[in-house]
């Protein structure tokens, strides 16, 4: 079902190569002005799907619609190709100056020289490389080259921008500023963008919607928060960084919560499932709080915290992960929590340390197990 603002719609897109199915997407829509990212592990078919959408890979089964017109019979392929712009992981610049590179798309479209000069200058300054205009493309650094490639794509004011892991080969110092600049340009021009990445953080940052792919299929599409917190199955859950995935059985089903027995413990979750269902619990590590306070009940018998799930546990390992620390725990079932460096130090978290683990019922996402 396509919304009123669907720029691209794909139906029944299938790509098979050598007998195996690379892409199998019955339906895909890209709304006007949105940023959609395709994420998934290597070999999931993201790049192939992107190339299908760009009509660069042939043959494929299925139909592609551009603004309601079928590409091929109704909308000529060349017209469609000239409405899109694509940037790859490698800059793929021509052996010429930066100016000539950025102008190449416009030259191909036969624009007048005055128009070209204007458009190129604007694009160069948007990406902060106006000072490189006369430099040979061969002499650019990785970051500068990729900026040139992006500037080349934007210079033609595409209807749709397609990016295939554009930041993957950049070093961290070049990546950050470029991602910011690109985001600024996309937002200010309102360009519809589809981009492929294997970096979850990148896609969370930049996208309006995320589509998670595995083995040629799209498993879930939705805004970042939804995909993060309500993954539709185990694979998506683990891909979006749900640290704790547990199998269990619904023991009790209440008004707004269910109790799931996991190993020999009981976990409460705010949802509904019939008793006896086999389910999978997803608990994001950011939502798991640790405390070294022994008490779980007040003097007057009520619970100390609003978290419905409180367990004693033992730290089985602590791994630094850049900005945070990943703490692996055993509470009768394995659990993962993220804490800050300070917390780790102040709580003296180390292997063997006994702690109290708590997380809210609303933080437990339950998926029915097939």
């Amino acid at each position, binding site marked *: 079902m396509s919304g009123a603002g669907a720029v691209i719609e794909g139906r029944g897109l299938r790509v098979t190569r050598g007998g195996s199915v690379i892409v199998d997407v019955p339906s895909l829509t890209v709304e006007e002005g949105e940023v959609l990212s395709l994420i998934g592990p290597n070999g999931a078919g993201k790049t192939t799907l992107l190339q299908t959408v760009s009509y660069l890979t042939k043959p494929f089964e299925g139909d592609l619609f551009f603004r309601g017109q079928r590409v091929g019979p109704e909308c000529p392929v060349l017209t469609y190709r*000239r409405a899109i712009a694509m940037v790859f992981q490698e800059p793929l610049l*021509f*052996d010429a100056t930066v100016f000539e590179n950025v102008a*190449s798309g416009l030259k*191909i479209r036969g624009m007048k020289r005055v128009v070209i000069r204007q458009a190129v200058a604007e694009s160069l300054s948007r990406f902060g490389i106006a000072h490189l205009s006369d430099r*040979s493309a061969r002499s650019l650094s990785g970051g500068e080259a990729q900026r040139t490639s992006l500037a080349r794509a934007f210079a*033609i004011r595409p209807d749709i921008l397609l990016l295939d892991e554009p930041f993957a080969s950049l070093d961290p110092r070049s990546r950050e500023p470029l991602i910011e600049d690109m985001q600024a340009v996309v937002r200010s021009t309102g360009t519809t963008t589809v981009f492929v990445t294997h970096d979850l953080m990148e896609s969370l940052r930049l996208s309006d919607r995320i589509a998670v792919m595995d083995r040629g299929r799209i498993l879930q599409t939705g805004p970042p928060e939804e995909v993060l917190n309500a993954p539709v199955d185990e694979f998506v859950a683990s891909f979006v960084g749900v640290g704790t995935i547990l199998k269990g059985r619904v023991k009790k089903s209440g008004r707004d919560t269910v109790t799931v027995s996991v190993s020999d413990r009981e976990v409460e979750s705010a949802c509904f499932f019939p008793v006896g269902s086999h389910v999978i619990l997803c608990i994001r590590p950011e939502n798991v709080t640790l405390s070294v306070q022994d008490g779980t009940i007040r003097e007057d018998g009520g619970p100390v915290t609003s978290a419905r799930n409180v367990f004693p546990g033992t730290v089985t390992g602590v791994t630094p992960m850049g900005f945070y620390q990943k703490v692996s725990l055993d509470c009768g079932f394995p659990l993962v929590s993220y804490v800050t460096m300070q917390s780790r130090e102040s709580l003296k978290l180390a292997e063997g340390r006994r702690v109290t683990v708590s997380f809210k019922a609303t933080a437990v996402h339950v998926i029915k197990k097939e």
Partner: protein
Amino acid sequence: MELIVEGIRKAFWLLVTGDPEVMGITLLSLRVSGLATLVSLVIGVAAGTLVALTRFPGRGFVVSLINTGMGLPPVVVGLFVTILLWRSGPLGFLGMLYTPGAMILAQAVIATPIVMGITLAAMQQLPKKLRLQILALGATRLQLVWILTKEARLPLLAAVMAGFGGVISEVGASIMVGGNIKGYSRVLTTATVMETSRGNFDTAIALGIILLALAFAVNLVLTHIQQKERPR
């Protein structure tokens, strides 16, 4: 050794006095080989690009054929072209045997596989995704070929030099199809052979030196262009 010195002196003398026969022979060498290289450039680049960019059944076989063709013995080419152009041959009605036109034809046949092979290699060395990027920029197929050719211009220049070098110095085919006719189809290489067989070694050496100088001069220009564009 003194023969070579004599030859060098004679070469200077012939050039400085502008000996008309030698001038004529030199100009004809340039014209015949130049045109042959031009023809081979046009056909070779087009065909080489076509084979490089398309997939078709039997492609591997065709590529082997091209690579073999790069080493075609010129004398064998000359033989086949002669047989074609004989009065009794299939193209005999053209009456082209023993003309500079026949020499251009034979030399073009020799040079074209060379240009084709180098073009093929050059095109295949371009990044595989470059083709996709150019298409994504909205290029028509013609524009695609043009842009790829521009990207590969350095090796293509090498192809021109290789083709030219191969034909300016060849003698077997030129003698057979040209006939080495004085003032008409006599070029530097065929004249050198003739002078040698007559025993006029000093003249032969002189002509040889002129030929070397000519080839060097042409390659100097082309190399200069190529190296100017060399990646820094």
